[in-house]
């Protein structure tokens, strides 16, 4: 089943003095259970593409579909609904709310969607155990280490069982040990829950965890390579 399909998408930022063409005609497609890494030099448009894929931003041109939904057809509220039900996010700077405890941070997406509190808290407990944070549930983010924060952010990203996880340099701010731990977790989630992951990174080791690596340059896809020996459905990437 296709989770994400991107067809000839472009993004031009017109905010500044000269328009910046950050994404210049990218097409790709992710099936359920795919784990794809985006690589490329700084400024090549990775983050921009992730924002588009995560329904955080609208493309200047091209088509984006997440599962059955055509993003162009959705208004802001519908996009919000889509995000909170089908997509999870992990970022370089953790982005936990400093005023909420770890448990409250993790349950946030469910509660925002109007979900049940006790169920959410039970699930947060399970996820915390899985990411090794059970003893930290009552703490505030600033009392945690970087690695712990990122793991909390991952728990928050998957508590609502999203179809697609968007991760923008999730290991960028971590030491290699913690980075490896986060990567392991991503791999586990991908394998065990068939979670579809789209990840942007600078690090080759990070990218190695993915099944497929897409290299970008100047807003375009430069090459696609498959890392795992396992036979996967042929990636449909158009350059």
């Amino acid at each position, binding site marked *: 089943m296709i989770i994400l399909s991107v067809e000839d998408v472009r993004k031009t930022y017109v905010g500044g003095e000269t328009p910046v063409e950050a994404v210049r005609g990218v097409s790709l497609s992710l099936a359920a259970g795919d784990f794809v890494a985006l690589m490329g030099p700084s400024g090549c448009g990775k983050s921009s593409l992730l924002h588009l894929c995560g329904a955080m931003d609208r493309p200047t041109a091209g088509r984006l579909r997440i599962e059955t939904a055509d993003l162009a057809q959705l208004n802001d509220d519908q996009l919000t609904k889509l995000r909170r039900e089908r997509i999870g996010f992990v970022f370089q700077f953790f982005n936990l709310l400093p*005023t909420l405890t770890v448990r409250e941070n993790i349950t*946030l997406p469910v509660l*925002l969607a109007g979900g049940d*509190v006790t169920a959410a808290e039970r699930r947060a407990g399970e996820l915390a155990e899985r990411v090794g944070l059970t003893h930290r549930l009552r703490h505030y983010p*600033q009392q945690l280490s970087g690695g712990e924060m990122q793991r909390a952010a991952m728990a928050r990203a998957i508590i609502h069982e999203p179809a697609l996880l968007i991760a*923008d340099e999730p290991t960028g701010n971590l030491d290699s040990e913690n980075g490896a731990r986060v990567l392991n977790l991503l791999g586990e989630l991908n394998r065990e829950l068939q979670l579809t992951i789209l990840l942007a990174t600078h690090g080759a080791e990070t990218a190695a965890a993915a099944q497929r690596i897409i290299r970008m340059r100047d807003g375009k896809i430069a090459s696609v390579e498959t890392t795992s020996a396992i036979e996967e459905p042929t990636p449909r990437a158009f350059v």
Partner: protein
Amino acid sequence: MRLFRQFIWRHLAQEKLRSCATVLGIALGVAVVLAIQMTNASSVRGFEKAIETVAGKTSLEIVGAGAGFDELLIKDLGWLRTYGQVSPVIEGDAEITLADKRSESLRVLGVDILRDRSLRDYQLRANAETQTASARQFLQLLSDARSVILTEKFTRKHKLNIGQTVELTFADKAEPYTVRGVLKDEGPARTMDGNFALLDLASAQWAFHRLGRIDRLDVRLKDAAQLAAAERAIAERLPAGLRVQRPARRGSQVEKMLAAFHFNLTALSYIALLVGLFLIYNTVSISVITRRAEIGTLRALGATRGTVLALFLAEALALAVIGCSLGLLFGRVLSFGAVKLTATTVNALYIAAAAEPPPLAWQHVWIAFGLGLPLSLLAAAVPALEAARVAPTAAMRGSDHLISRFRLRARYVVLPLCLLAAAWWFARQPAVNGLPAFGYASALAIVFGAAFLVPAVLFALGRLGDKPLFRLFKIEGRLANANLAGAIPRISISVAALAVSLSMMTAIAVMIGSFRETVVYWVNQTLVADLYLRPATRHNVATDAVFSPEVERIVSAHPAVAAADRFRNFDIAYGGGLVTLGTGEFAKQEAHGHLLFKAPTGAEAGKAAIRSCIGQDAVIVSESFALKYATQVGDVISLTTPQGDRTFRIAAVYYDYSSDRGIIVMDRGTFTKYFGEPQATSLTVYLRPGADADAVREDLLRQFGSNYRVLIYTNASIRQEVLRIFDSTFAITYALEVIAIFVAILGVATTLLTLILERKREIAVLRLVGADRRQVRKMVVIEAGLMGAVSQSVGAGVGLLLSLVLIYVINVQSFGWTIQFRVPWGFLAQSSLLILLATALSGLYPARRASQLQTAEEVVEE
């Protein structure tokens, strides 16, 4: 300077809304202080100016101990002429009825014109008809008793001509008068802005029912330089019962009388300024907090601590200069409203005041800036000093958006407790010079105590609020509560400012509510007569308008009247100020009246005390007299009578809420013995059982016909009138309060807006993990409402404490009234709801801004 432009000015320009709100806050604060200043000045200055213009070249005046003195005494004062020119004077207020049936007040001077011209400049207007020598015209005034001279300004305004007939009402009597001349706009003609009339002495005596009496002798010294010596010499030679004084003395007496009223208004006006200063403090601290890293960079680049301090003080200064300038303008505008609001009270309770605030003068500019700028700098000094302490390394720490959590330290609880203890001590100190200085110190200590308690309350809310808020408002409630708990250092100031204003409002509401209850009770107990009569021109107790003997006769002769208590009062000098000396018929009072006695207690004991005064040198005094002059039952007070100083025993102290100046009342018999037969200034009428008050009123009015202008209140309408005056007295109080609260809510809104802009990233994350715009909006509005709720709960609690100080300390020391403490629960509930709504509404704009933030950029950009 360049640094200032780059670093502060641009920042202020960027933060337009917050800068504007701050400027507006200071402007309103300064404006309120100025407006009250001008209003107070207008009532006293109006009075003093009238004295001055009427006084002309008068250097000394001889006054009697009672209401004026017998003109026969003048014969024995021939020696006065060796000191200078002497002129006997009658002065009073009359009403003129104009063609369109409206009437206006006139200040009337009755003099012996030919003699008086050496004291005052009268210039008759010379026009075609009045080519004749002015001396002849002045003599014409003498020839006809019903002649009057008006001023040029007045005649022009009302299109009156010489020879025309106008209707003048003196006390209760309306008579036609002929305009015989017009005074040029000079000298005394400027009195009361031209509402001035000149009469012959004899006509004035007749018109005011003062036959054979004069109000005073004005003296113009030959050698004005010898004023002090002459005053002393004259004082020595004057017989008992006469006094010499300078005209300005009357002004200072009035000033003293109004002092407490003005002091309280002034104190109240400073609340608004205080809140405005909170806003400056708030703005500067926010800019220091949010720009720590920038300050660090500046320091790293070589800016000294002094430079940083100067920068932030300059920020405050810039805001304050604009605020004060605007405040000057606003103040002028507000003063018109304030004069209107206070006029009823001042007129009803004290003096006929000028109805216009003074024009803007340098002195006001001086007040605005002399007060606004230093206080603003002081308010900004604390955060500016904090800015100066920022280390250069603050720049390096980089993304320190993970603010350290607020920790509840002991001082957040100990300091407020210390202040409350201080307040307790202050509250027990006596008045200073008749002004409740310590009372206000106590109030101030309570207010600051409350302000310093706010962080602790916010902390407690953060701890305990999660569960109930989550249940009430779902996840948005939890987020709002967490946001506030995380921002305690930043929101404390604005919450405290709002709490302070609200506590003042609560306190004042409780005080007024209690006072009103007390007055209503008093009115119901003591105002038991069926009809109350007064001459039409008697607008306040100070107006010396007496009834015509004919009116008194008609009333006593009416078959339905069981008793008519003839009451007379006028102001006498006592203890450096003015008190009211009154006289009534104690036998009638004992039989029909229902005074409430403070001492001796009990209605029967009170009646016995009244009875004991009859035929004795004994008086009863009002509670405010007893408190002001620290006297009690059994004490002996000394009064100056026309027969010299006499002592009177105080037989009872009674409750009275009609005036705060202190009242001494003696029986008619006693009064007559020392002051001569009194003419009544008011009549209290008790009807026979079964008589219909309204019918009797109609009947009396019919008998008075058009000759006599008498106001007759029935029991119901006098009660209404008392409460109307009461309510109007406090109208200004509420107006001042509303402004202070408005300014405080402004503070909450700007703080919230700043918080939102600071929290952009967090809000973006929220949006990312699934919050829609509506949820973000709801969260911010709840935050605003929570700030309002905390403010109101602290405000209401502290307000109750404050009201105790107001009622039992400040009121007692400045007015001398006993007020029964009552909590107006209805008002508290209503105002709480209103404040909650108002603050929540003030959160709408920040909420909209928050919900419109773009999601993608904020998260990624560091």
